[in-house]
């Protein structure tokens, strides 16, 4: 019944082209979530963005990914990631390949290493901010032609000082609109 008859005319319509080879999908807003009732002691690593609403004690190593510590998040750990956003509480050192943002509700005690650091009004921070080491790592990485893949190995697509809000960049040039000039 399903066998094609030999005298049946061959369809003349062209067959639809095969689908194009799969391309990397753009990153969606979805991120893995550690819920508010979850506590993790140890190292968290992976290859997707992460939102922390619960507690983490140990280390967060998500090079190349975005990490957000939500308002209910409490982290006692060093965090290595591409972009780090803090809305909750963190005690530990933060290494951002691109940027670190501490939101108004955020509290951080520790050291920040990133080419760009943004502290929103109302945020609490105590510790050091190092934009030089991060920039040097970024420069070295770009000279090697390697993408930023690892924690602390800063690779940024945006030039220092290109942040949309309150950019912080290494003191390599005269600040824009600033009457002072470097000798």
């Amino acid at each position: 019944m399903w066998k094609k008859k030999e005298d049946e005319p061959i369809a003349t319509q062209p067959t639809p082209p095969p689908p194009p080879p799969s391309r990397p999908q753009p990153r969606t807003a979805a991120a893995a979530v550690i819920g508010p009732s979850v506590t993790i002691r140890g190292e968290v690593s992976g290859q997707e963005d992460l939102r922390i609403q619960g507690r983490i004690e140990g280390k967060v190593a998500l090079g190349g990914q975005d990490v957000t510590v939500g308002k209910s998040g409490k982290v006692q750990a060093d965090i290595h990631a591409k972009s780090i956003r803090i809305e909750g509480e963190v005690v530990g050192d933060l290494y951002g390949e691109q940027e670190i943002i501490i939101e108004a509700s955020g509290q951080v005690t520790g050291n920040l290493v990133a080419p760009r650091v943004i502290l929103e009004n109302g945020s609490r921070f105590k510790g050091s901010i190092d934009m030089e080491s991060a920039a040097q790592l970024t420069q070295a990485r770009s000279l090697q032609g390697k993408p930023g893949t690892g924690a602390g190995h800063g690779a940024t697509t945006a030039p220092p000082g290109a942040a949309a809000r309150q950019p912080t960049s290494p003191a390599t040039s005269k600040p824009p609109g600033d009457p002072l000039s470097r000798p």
Partner: protein
Amino acid sequence: MKKTSPQRWNDAASQLSPGTAQHHTLALKYVLRRLLERRHARVLDLGAAIGSNVSFVGRYAPKLYVSDLHNTLKGRPGGLPKDRKQFERLLSKDLPSDDLGPFDLILAWDLLNYLGGEQMAILGRHLARLCRQDSLIFALITNSKEMPRQPIGFRIIDTDTLSYTIDSDLGRPSPLFKESDLNRWLADFEVETSFLLRNGFQEYVLSFSE
């Protein structure tokens, strides 16, 4: 560095009052010029972390340490501990360790007004350990009889302008420190220059000498 006499902005210095205001700063530009002479400069901010200040200072110094002594003070309604050992412990906890220095510029803002002489001396000794030759302190000393109960959060607008908000009534007597007081209590530092402002503050730049 040649010492300069205080520059008077206006003969009749007005008084501090609650609210938000801006003032023209002369000392900030002065210290930033000096900072530009240093490569890989480091800045220690004794005040609270303020985003715009971090952004601004970051253009001049890629390494910044925020000790947030302002909020430590605010968290202690009775003020900083009078007991010498307790105060030293507090400073050891809040100030960076020696290996994070030396710092080229220390932003003290108005913190010194909230210290007694002995406390200032202890702070000065701690800061001296974090300095190198010609490191600078930028401080604002009140010339008004009264000052806010809590330290003020100063916001850098540009090299010439500071913004500040006084959200509490004045009501704390000002210590009215003079240059001689600063030189006495901060023995490792010397007043390099100062600027009298119209809003009742006098800006001081002190330099460290080994």
